[in-house]
């Protein structure tokens, strides 16, 4: 039950990766997709190495679909989905999962909400029975909703309110997206969470929790036909609503003003620097552009041999760490991050200027062919490494499909990475690493009185 906050600074632990042609030839599993009559999408990822399955249901709605003034409702509903249905009392599903030795959880992102269980393979049908049941049968009372809202407030206090770094991240996103709801935290703003109630949760539930809006992903020791039969038996009996729900989101106007957001807090002893640019996502980008941004992020800030690390940390010695990350998996225009932590005594202004110089020099000098080769090798190899984890594959397919990509897009991704030309990388850098499209964030200790 997490709010999957957008990566504040730095890449997520397991950045999404893809299977390459070579990976598939090397023996990757045959991944199959199909649709049930009621519109539910199904993906099957066979992995026969251990007698376990990962069962996930993804809904194509997330925090960016929260109605105005109701921030946090997607995430709050995700919590409430564990509260029982007409058929099953509160806690019964979790009890069954625990009793079967399974693991379960759920998470909410900007663009999706997902529920999963990991169990021994013979229990897949039982998981489907419960998960299908709560797609339509949720029962909520005020007695259940009120303490759970307190839990969410505690979650917010734990992850955001006590952490100035998290507070700065929220402020940077809010400044970057002036109109689009990616600027609102997934967990919601405190003053709006406090007002969320049973009626809000049920209205949101009835709007989005439909078979047409859901993606079932099953990874593990299963065969396609077995999954198809089980899915039809359990999910197939849910009545279709006709059309999938629409995601109506106000879009961001073209940004024209670079912004600086500074947070001073007495708890800060290590300053940090970040910059976040608005950039196209895998879904909104021109052909090849998202792949170019992926490679660009790796060249600029993917590990110790990257340009930012070498320049800021090794050569100039003004930062202790530095990196970059492209958040390509998003339905709408998304984010490209740069981040650094200064060495003691180095000012934010010094970092700002140094990073601007590095970017300008990169664009002027062009791409080092050896570095490009290494970046591609790494990105494509990650696809093979991903095959070692059914849970990671399930997440990758689910998140890609829920943000508007097709199975073919996912399959093609490594081939497209291999095809990225230096010119495309430079074009992407020139177009998108434009300071007018960015917010820079400074996290600093308390130095002076807040009120002059």
């Amino acid at each position: 039950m997490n709010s999957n906050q957008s990566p504040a600074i730095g890449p997520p632990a397991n950045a999404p990766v893809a299977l390459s042609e070579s990976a598939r030839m090397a023996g990757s599993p045959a991944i199959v997709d199909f649709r049930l009559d009621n519109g539910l999408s199904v993906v099957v990822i066979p992995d026969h190495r251990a007698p376990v399955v990962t069962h996930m249901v993804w809904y194509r709605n997330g925090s960016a679909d929260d109605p105005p003034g109701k921030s946090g409702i997607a995430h709050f509903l995700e919590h409430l989905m564990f509260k029982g249905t007409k058929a099953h009392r509160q806690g019964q599903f979790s009890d069954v999962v625990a009793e079967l030795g399974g693991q379960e959880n759920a998470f909410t992102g900007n663009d999706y909400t997902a529920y999963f269980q990991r169990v021994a393979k013979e229990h897949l049908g039982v998981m489907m029975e419960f998960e299908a049941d709560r797609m339509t049968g949720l029962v909520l009372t005020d007695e259940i909703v009120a303490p759970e809202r307190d839990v969410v407030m505690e979650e917010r206090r734990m992850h955001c309110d006590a952490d100035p770094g998290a507070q700065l991240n929220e402020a940077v996103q809010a400044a970057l997206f002036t109109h689009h709801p990616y600027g609102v935290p997934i967990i919601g703003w405190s003053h709006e969470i406090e007002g969320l109630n049973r009626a809000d949760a049920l209205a949101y539930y009835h709007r989005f929790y439909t078979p047409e809006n859901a993606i079932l992903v099953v990874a593990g020791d299963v065969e396609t036909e077995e999954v198809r039969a089980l899915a039809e038996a359990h999910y197939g009996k849910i009545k279709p609503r006709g059309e999938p729900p629409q995601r109506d989101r106000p879009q961001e106007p073209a940004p024209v003003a670079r912004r600086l957001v500074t947070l001073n807090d007495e708890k800060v002893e290590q300053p940090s620097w970040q910059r976040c640019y608005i950039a196209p996502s895998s879904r909104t980008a021109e052909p090849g552009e998202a792949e170019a941004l992926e490679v660009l992020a790796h060249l600029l800030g993917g590990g110790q041999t990257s340009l930012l690390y070498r320049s800021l940390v090794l050569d100039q010695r003004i930062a202790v760490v530095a990196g970059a990350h492209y958040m390509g998996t998003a339905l709408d225009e998304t984010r490209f991050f740069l981040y650094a932590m200064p060495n003691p005594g180095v000012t934010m202004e010094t970092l700002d200027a140094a990073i601007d110089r590095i970017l300008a020099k990169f664009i002027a000098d062009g791409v080092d062919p050896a570095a490009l080769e290494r970046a591609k090798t790494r990105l494509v190899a990650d696809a093979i490494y991903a095959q070692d984890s059914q849970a990671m594959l399930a997440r990758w397919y689910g998140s890609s499909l829920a943000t508007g990509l097709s199975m073919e897009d996912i399959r093609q991704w490594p081939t497209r990475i291999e095809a990225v030309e230096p010119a495309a990388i430079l074009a992407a850098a020139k177009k998108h690493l434009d300071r007018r499209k960015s917010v820079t964030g400074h996290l600093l200790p308390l130095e002076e009185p807040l009120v002059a």
Partner: protein
Amino acid sequence: MNAPIVKPAASRAVNVQQIETPRGVKAWLVEDYAVPLLSLEFAFKGGSAQDPPGKPGAATMLAALLDEGAGPLDSQAFQQALDEKAIEISFNCDRDYLGGRMRTLIRNVERASELLRLAVNAPRLDEAPIARVREQLSAGLRHEANDPGSLAGRTWRARSFPGHPYGAPPNGTLESLPKIQRADLVALGRDLVTRGALHIGIVGAIDAARAAALIDVVFADLPASGVLADVADAPFGGIGTIETIDLDVPQSTIRFGRPSLARHDPDYMASVLLAHILGGGTGLSSRLFREVREKRGLAYSVSTSVSTLDHASFLHGGTSTKNERAKESLDVIAAEILDLSRNGPTEEELDKGKKYLVGSYPLRFDTSAKIAGQLVHIQMDGFGPEWLIERNRLIQAVTMEDARRVAKRVFGDGKMSVSIVGRPVGL
């Protein structure tokens, strides 16, 4: 659909081969050709508990420097060599061991083992990376200086293991890191990175003969043993008292714990089961989850588990709750612990807890790296591969009578060592 509910363990992991290389290095191997990669995990016993007096952080610093240049390759050259073949090599440090891992596509296994051989046998420990890693660790310490979770954990360990290496911060302090010099790291490496202290788990598309050859290339030339400091068993301190660290945040972050049973105590698995019943699992069905979160909305997370180090075993847990309700949360937790001590778990709790722990064991074996890691930990715990079966048999054998008896041993009078960060009201 009529397969048994309880699997002995993941199918791949039960096929452990114990190998001994031509040069006498031992390892556990699981052959698996489904994905063309290799995961190697290893650990040297000894770890931050071996930090020189007054220099906490030294072993962590050493671990962080082993992939920062070795043999003829300086730091950048080493990292580029890894990148060229997408080879992953990294090191980590825990209280009782210094660990490492390597992951590679099987087609690059020879280059990977050559780079790992250099890192393990000939780390350069150049002054520039030493200075940089010192700054990085220092930045990490400053970054978490006022993080409630880190602060509460640090405080809890220091008060629970006073004067013992386990009470010291494994990442050092802003005062200790500058004192750690190259000579300290070289000496520590000589004593820690030895064949005698080594345990290896290897999983992937490789047969026993090739695995043995690889292991000999990497590890056979290490010295037989080093000089490790004697670490005493750690007495547990701070019982029955609360230490509060004032921090201006809306929430109180709480850590609590008390001594528990040693790894080879015959009742150990029963103690694991009891900690699970109290506050374990994925957390959605434990006693504390029900009482603290579900019924009262006091916290987002609350959990307990047991930890066993070589010289200390303890039950510990944590939660975060708003300052006004910190006392209520602690009272609820204390009451549940005391109730378990007096009355033991219910039949239903015992039954469900056993089913969970037994049934979830295979989930620890679903990736090559996780299997390799498990193989190393089972060896370090002093068990043979039969533990993969024995572990679940021991859990299933716990009777209600055992559970009640062991609950008294583990939870006793219910008194805890507690640390709180925040501004708790009413304590």
